[in-house]
């Protein structure tokens, strides 16, 4: 019996390692602390979350140029930014798609889209796709609301969709992102911290041959 003990311990630690690897692969969960990142904005400058000293948090949105479904939300993202940036929660859009897998998502095309749509928010390129993996984003659009803690950390407060009707803004009955932001601003718990919605799969870089 005693001899078997180390084997059991080994099995348990392997199991623990595997489980933690799986969790890591899934990205952030609500309540996790997000690590700051530095990515290139369409204006050519590098941007990090810490740059805006007066931000109470951010609406980090994974979106792109090429996904028709993500495009349905561009105007709503602009409105969200216009409403909540003055209240301390600006939108930060991140394009997660690999340029070789999706040429329409090149930096130049991002600049063009930002200009055409007059994006009032930052539009960043995640060239290495590291930030996207860390967040665990799987689709465009995919939205994360971060809240700055008193220690200056970025706590994940909400993950999911902006609202519950992609096709018709008039028929929206649940404004998930706005509800979450209003709760944060009122210092109230968020009623719905996680939602799912469909979207375009993220175009990952083909593994190096």
């Amino acid at each position: 019996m005693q001899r078997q003990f180390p084997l059991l311990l080994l099995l348990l630690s392997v199991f623990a390692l595997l489980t933690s690897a799986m969790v890591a692969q899934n990205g952030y969960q609500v309540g996790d602390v997000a690590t700051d990142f530095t990515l290139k904005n369409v204006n050519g400058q590098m941007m990090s979350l810490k740059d805006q000293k007066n931000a109470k948090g951010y609406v980090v949105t994974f979106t792109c140029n090429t996904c028709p479904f993500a495009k349905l939300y561009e105007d709503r993202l602009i409105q969200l930014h216009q409403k909540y940036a003055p209240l301390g929660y600006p939108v930060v859009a991140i394009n997660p798609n690999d340029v070789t897998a999706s040429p329409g998502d090149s930096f130049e095309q991002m600049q063009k889209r930002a200009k055409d749509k007059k994006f009032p928010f930052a539009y960043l390129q995640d060239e290495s796709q590291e930030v996207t993996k860390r967040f665990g984003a799987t689709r465009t659009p995919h939205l994360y609301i971060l809240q700055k803690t008193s220690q200056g950390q970025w706590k994940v407060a909400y993950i999911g969709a902006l609202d519950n009707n992609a096709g018709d803004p008039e028929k929206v009955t649940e404004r998930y992102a706005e509800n979450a932001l209003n709760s944060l601003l009122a210092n109230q718990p968020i009623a719905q911290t996680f939602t799912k919605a469909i979207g375009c799969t993220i175009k990952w870089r083909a593994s190096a041959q």
Partner: protein
Amino acid sequence: MRVPGNLLVALCLLVGLASSRGAVAQNAHVPVIKLAQLQHYLNSSADTTYIINLWATWCKPCIEEIPHFEALQKQYANQPVKVLLVSLDFAKDLDKKVIPFVQRRQLKSTVLLLDEPDYNSWIDAFDPAWSGALPATLFFNNAKQQRLFVEKPLTPALLQEYLSTKFSLKP
């Protein structure tokens, strides 16, 4: 002059009728369904292997993999295997986008349009492992208690590999 004229009109009518009949025969039938109807398949106790591919006309990788599912349906034509191509296009795009797509591609598999725009209310019911990204594919045989869910684009090689190693569907 009169008779040939009438003949010509009759001929035109005949040709017109024939071609319109042809068009009717080719017309794609894409039923618009609700979740309950999809659940009817999901809860089926039949010894049938269902392959439900979730796609949309706006999803490029979905469109690229549809021929693989068509080939699969053909490959298993004499077996209890049913491919369902479930479109998540908006119901308002049925006539404008979905049916023309099905006609253009001459799809032979069953195509359905799932009209459930409140995604958060049913994604987990379809499969808890589904994050919502398209394309996504569910293979299941309830009689054999077999189930495999994949949320990524599939190549013919991947499809065959999954079916033979992760799912006991023998060619």
